[in-house]
């Protein structure tokens, strides 16, 4: 049996699992299906309840992973096949083409400047974030190399043949990108790292154990929920987080998507969608503290901004969380126990009126705000289902990976040698993810 372990997912859980195992002396394959390690935490502005800058504390860990001799990072890579073999597992991975030679690319960005096609960023599109078709996922990305998005707006690049000549629109005829400008720019720099003909690559590895650390997803509000997707200034709590982030598309300016003006009245609706069709039916644990954090930071940006949190049950469960909530109130954040009913937009000002029942008084009230943030909760990753099939393990009824026996054997799955940690087990915060990741690393390296 090979002595390596495989960790699927390289967010904060996967990173900590990998660092612990590697420091213990075990070789680790750290696989992520996105182009960089870092996961959700790399995109956050701050972490509650201390308001530590998220990337400031995560990036050193990312570099540590990158430099650790016991860790092989495989980004843009998916797990395709897993078979029990030799007391462990034989695993087929597929490294998706990123159309870049990872060895040669230095992340210098010359190609990025040359690329003529700008598209809305997946994460930041709603709040004005854009990227080029060739891009780096975020400034602290590891590995620090480019990735080409095959979804050109003129069509989809094929797996082979890529852009030049392979696109649905023949690129030699394409006025946007007539001569594969990125290739030329890279060559001009003395490199030749852009590989428009790169194909997916199979990689076979043998490991003794597998840790699932695929994380969690923020729930997308159903269209129309409190005006989401209908009104410009209704955003989700993850979009708002990007809005606050100095490394985000607005450089940390809390401005309205509709007119890019600073907002002076901002409200959060907690448990948005609970009990409604398409909403999250359970408590996601972290959203109360996320809203508390966001409202405090908003006040730090500008104390004059009026901030209100409409909530029902406050979840301030962890160490220092209650004091954090009290800090928010001291700083002037208003917490209103409320049941919001609906939201109307003023077509001229694009301001939003929230109609809600104040639970303390039982009265129906109206508030006008300039940005409305929906705390929609956390849900299982949609890709869990496919991975569970490949690993031959089960998901629970909410779509998270099922533990065999949560009390006496936490983090173990039905298959011996496959463990789970972090957001893959359910809603969880960063420190709990790190705890589980550390515990799972112990299971993964221990004799069976």
């Amino acid at each position, binding site marked *: 049996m090979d002595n390596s372990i495989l960790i699927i997912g390289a967010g904060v859980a996967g990173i900590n699992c990998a660092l612990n195992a590697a420091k213990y002396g075990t070789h680790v394959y750290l696989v992520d299906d996105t182009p960089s390690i870092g996961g959700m935490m790399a995109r956050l502005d701050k972490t509650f309840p201390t308001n530590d800058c998220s990337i400031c504390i995560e990036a050193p860990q990312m570099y540590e992973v990158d430099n650790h001799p016991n860790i092989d990072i495989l980004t843009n890579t998916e797990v395709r096949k897993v078979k029990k073999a030799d007391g462990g597992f034989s695993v087929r991975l597929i490294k998706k083409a990123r159309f870049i030679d990872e060895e040669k690319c230095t992340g*210098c960005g010359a190609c990025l400047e040359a690329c003529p096609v700008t598209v809305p960023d997946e994460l930041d599109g709603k709040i004005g974030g854009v990227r080029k078709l060739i891009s780096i996922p975020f400034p602290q990305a590891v590995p620090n190399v480019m990735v080409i998005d095959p979804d050109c707006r003129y069509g989809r690049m094929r797996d082979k043949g890529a852009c030049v000549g392979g696109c649905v629109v023949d690129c030699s005829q394409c006025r946007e990108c007539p001569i594969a400008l990125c290739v030329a720019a890279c060559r*001009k720099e003395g490199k030749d790292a852009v590989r428009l003909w790169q194909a997916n690559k199979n990689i076979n590895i043998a490991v003794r154990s597998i840790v699932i650390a695929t994380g969690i997803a923020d729930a997308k509000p159903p269209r129309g929920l409190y005006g989401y997707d209908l009104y410009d200034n209704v955003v989700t709590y993850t979009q708002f987080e990007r809005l606050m982030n100095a490394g985000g598309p607005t450089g940390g300016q809390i401005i309205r998507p509709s007119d890019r003006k600073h907002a002076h009245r901002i409200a959060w609706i907690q448990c948005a969608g609970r009990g409604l069709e398409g909403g999250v039916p359970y408590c996601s*644990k972290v959203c109360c503290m996320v809203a508390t954090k966001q409202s405090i930071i908003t006040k730090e940006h500008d104390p004059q901004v009026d901030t209100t949190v409409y909530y029902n049950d406050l979840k301030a469960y962890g160490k220092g969380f209650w004091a954090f909530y009290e800090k928010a109130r001291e700083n002037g954040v208003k917490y209103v126990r409320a049941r919001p009913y609906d939201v109307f937009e003023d077509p001229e000002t694009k301001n939003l009126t929230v109609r809600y029942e104040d639970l303390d008084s039982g009265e129906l009230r109206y508030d006008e705000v300039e940005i409305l943030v929906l705390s929609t909760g956390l849900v299982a990753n949609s890709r869990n289902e496919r991975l569970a099939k490949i690993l031959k393990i089960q998901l629970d009824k909410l779509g998270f990976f099922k533990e065999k026996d949560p009390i006496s054997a936490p983090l173990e799955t039905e298959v011996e040698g496959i463990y789970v940690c972090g957001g893959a087990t359910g809603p969880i915060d960063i420190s709990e993810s790190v705890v589980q990741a550390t515990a799972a690393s112990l299971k993964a390296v221990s004799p069976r």
Partner: protein
Amino acid sequence: MTEEIRIGVFVCDCGSNIAGVVNVPEVVNYAKGLKNVVFVDEGKWSCSVDALSSMQESIKEHKLNRVVIASCTARTHEPLFKQTVKEAGLNPYLLEFVSIREQVSWVHMNEPEIATQKAKDLVKMGVAKAALLEEGEEIRLPVGKDCMVIGGGMAGMTAALSLANQGFKAVLVEKRPQLGGLLNLISTVSSDKELLSAEEIVRGQAKLVETHPNVVVYTNAEIENVDGYIGNYSVTIKSNGTRNNFDVSTVIVATGMRELNLEGKFFYGSDSRVVTQLELEGILKNNQLGDVKNVVMVNCVGSKNETRGCCNIGCHVSIKNALAIKRVNKEAKVYILYRDLSMVKEEHFHIDAAKAAGVKFLRFPDDRYPEVTKDNENLVINVYDILSGRAFLLSADLLVLTAGFEGDETIEKIKGHLKVSSNAEGFFQERHIKLGPLDFPADGIALCGCAKNPKTLKETIEEGMGAAMRVSIPMNNGYIEAEGIVADIDLANCNSCGLCWKRCPYGAIRVNENKEPQVVKALCKGCGLCAADCPKECISIVHYSDDQVLAQVEAALEENPADKIIAFVCHWCALGGVDMAGVSRLQYPPNARLIRVMCSARVSIKFIQRAFDLGAAGVLVAGCEFPTCHYISGNYAAEKRVNRAKKILAKKGFDPDKLWNIWCSAADGPKFANTMREMVRELHLAKEV
């Protein structure tokens, strides 16, 4: 005889990223003229495989004994170049990294001449420092394969078993006569399937622990003394009346928690019908519920107020116990009076189960707790329910208070033994709330379970395993290793003032019997706080010695000092902000010459003073944004020191307003760029330097 200094300088074009702005051949020529420089090379891509091997050849061919790399940023590329020079046979601490991309070409794109001048200055500063560099080495401290686990509850038992299963020896110390901790007092634990007997869980685990050949259990035990640090703790305990001494390499703290004392609240202590949830557990466990007809539970007693946070488990426990009562006595009326129902994921659906079983929920306002009175010896609870908007009068023959928790009473003693800290609520304080949840600042001591904060059984078991992993790493390797950047104390001038060992965040400085401080180098993280604080200047930091940093200051200010700002920048966040400004191509004035330190706490007043003595226009100290600090609290120390420096400067006739500081996150490129603009404006600096 001192060896001849032979410095090689490698300047990278980074394609056109540097060479497109900076006139690299000019920088190369300039470097050739610098003292001690014997070889200079320009590389198209210094980080490419070919360039690296040619660098190694040059090191050998020209017998280089110091190397300066002028290229991108140390934050991402220093490990690569360190490895490269190491493979060429050079000690990696003889490498100095100069950033002329993030700090020059990317941020002064439209001013090639000024950028070239700045690049030259930075190379000169790097060369000046390189001449003084000394060899460093990774330091190893042997660590044995035994661990003391303090506390024999579920966290401690799990930790001990996890260690024992890996072949390590675990010494489990429990103050009570039997293992099990809080779980001994509990009737049932809820799982996703059904209620489990706590007794079965605890006895099963205790048996595994007690019969494991690698675990030694001491019960009725009290710790009398703990001395030492990772690798060599010596412990004295008293167990069942006998004193025992033993040595261990690592320690896990799992001392658990206890319910708050509610004496006097709601007739608790004077009326036997008023009990806590933990006492109710005992009643349920021993089938002593009897014929209760009306049970009222009040949640959040003693918690969620000015002094104490949410107890994390009370909602869950009250619902579990309400259901348990309903199971024993279907006719009993059970009310749960609550503020917020804080239940996650599947747990959330327990609320529905309880409602279906007939448990009634009433929600009282945060500032209006229920009132309990006695009417002819009957307990009467007056509660205002927010949701229905009216008050209810409930009578109870059992009133259950969901009490908050605090750390175990042994916490104060253990804090003294291990030199660790706790918070105001009586729980131990972990190294970092997000990324160091199982560690204390000092290596080799881990923390788990309810000693940290209240948690569920599942979370407790996970923490027990996690803490075991944290101490297993050095035990499995047989050593801990520190980077070569460490403190070194020269005792010649030391007057045993004690500042260094008192302030070291890692307990890496210890005093011997002669009151002399000594650095346990393997524990030192190299922040340099001690060196900057030492009034006698006895402490030197490898790679960041006073001489080396001052050489950079002096080199930077050799020409046109009145236009220049000396910026001391911490490696972790502030330099991250600088790099972010570079990556974002934020253009800012070129007046600053950056000097990297590992932590802003390294910047001693002497450095600042020297810069002003030499005529610097301004000095900036940039560290991590509060509360983040890679070295726990270095930025707080730096802030205090900057304030002190201002007073000193004022006394000496300098303008203290020329000393600036910023606390900048690694994401905040705009903040650094703006600070540069502001400084240039406020200090009225000419742009061309």
